């Protein structure tokens, strides 16, 4: 299992952001659904080794990120797209992706080809020399995805990756996700159920820091039959599960 989490918690002062989450997942695309403030981003940040858990057991790629050596090894094989991607406006697309390839400790000789491949995969080949300050929000999001996949990660964590993408780009991105999920563990945090339905093999629904549903997208859809509120079958499943968890 590339992600092995047992009873993980995270507190920020008096706020319990993640409250005893357990999950395991291997290769495939894992969707993390939930309303705003459910704890998705905190869980993803712990998996990205940005913040440590308050308690519980976290193993990534078979290693404990609590130790310096294992954490560094995990980070070499990790791709992460944060919810708010900060960038250097004066960098070009290629320079930005190259910077993070270097910080991921990729061998220097492999970097130029890896950068070109990653930029092409997000359909920004023609913009490789464009300064980041000249790009639209959707393009910047794709730059963020390019830096996340530049090292061909074994564990890819994407926080709201489709935010700002137009419908055509979202369709292309879902195809990229399915392709990456063939050999990589991809965890996608989103509040868009259609992304989960189209790209994910497994889904967990979080609310108030807990996982209130874990199964396949079809199973989530089935929960909404005859219940729930929403325009699409999976939306009805989503609302039905949340309503049941809160009642």
């Amino acid at each position: 299992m590339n992600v092995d989490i047992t009873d993980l918690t995270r507190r920020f002062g008096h706020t319990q952001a993640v409250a005893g989450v357990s999950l395991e997942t291997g290769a495939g695309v894992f969707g993390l659904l939930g309303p705003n403030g459910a704890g998705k981003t905190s869980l993803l940040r712990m998996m990205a080794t940005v913040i440590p858990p308050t308690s519980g057991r976290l193993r990534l790629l078979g290693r404990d990120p609590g130790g310096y050596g294992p954490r560094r090894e995990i980070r070499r094989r990790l791709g992460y797209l944060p919810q708010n991607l900060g960038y250097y406006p004066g960098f070009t697309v290629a320079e930005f992706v190259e910077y993070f390839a270097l910080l991921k400790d990729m061998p220097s000789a492999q970097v130029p080809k890896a950068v070109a491949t990653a930029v092409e995969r997000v359909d920004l080949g023609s913009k490789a020399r464009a300064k980041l300050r000249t790009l639209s929000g959707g393009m910047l999001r794709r730059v963020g995805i390019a830096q996340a996949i530049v090292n061909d990660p074994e564990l890819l964590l994407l926080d709201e990756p489709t935010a700002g993408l137009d419908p055509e780009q979202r369709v292309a991105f879902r195809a990229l996700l399915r392709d990456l999920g063939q050999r990589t563990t991809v965890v996608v945090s989103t509040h868009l159920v259609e992304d989960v339905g189209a790209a994910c093999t497994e889904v967990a629904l979080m609310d108030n820091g807990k996982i209130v549903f874990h199964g396949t997208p079809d199973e989530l859809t089935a929960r909404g039959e005859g219940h729930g509120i929403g325009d699409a079958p999976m939306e009805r499943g989503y609302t039905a599960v949340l309503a049941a968890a809160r009642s």
Partner: protein
Amino acid sequence: MERAAGRLLRSPGLARALVTTPSLLLGWIIATVVVLVAGVAATLGTGTPYVALLAPAVAAAGIAYAYGPGIDPAWELSCSMAVSDRMVLLVRALAVFALNAALGLAASAASGAAAAVTFGWLIPMTAVCGLALAAATVTRSANVGVAAGLAGWLIAILAGQAAAGRYTAALTDSSLVLPYLAVAACCGAIAMYATRIPRGTS
């Protein structure tokens, strides 16, 4: 410059992290030079060693603004990288310190102040920079780091004035060298502790 840093640090990633230091951007460096040039003019005009009094405060601000949340645009992402953010912080802090020390030395030489004062600010600057770094890393706020550094330096100057009747006592009193170095070492240790990732995740 990036290539030279890459060879020196033996890490192209750290080298690029160095050249993206917020407080080493051109605007910041120009502002530092302007402050020190004004200090030189004031020193030459009044005989008071303003350069020596200003240099530690300016360097402390640069150190606090070298790296961190809200300062470095890509900080969140950098925290998930194999090249550790502690290394990035260390390299950037040393670079900012070295640049400010060089600019301060040039300004001191140009102001022609007394020898003891000319270079007497280097060790106090180390302590003040250490204080700013420790405060910034513990609170994860560059502004708190700047405030702590400036407050610490102001207290040292005022204490020198109260004890010896001279503002420059904080720079010239040789008995303060060891306390300054002790403060710098303690603050360095605090910064190292504050930037660790705690164990206990499994």
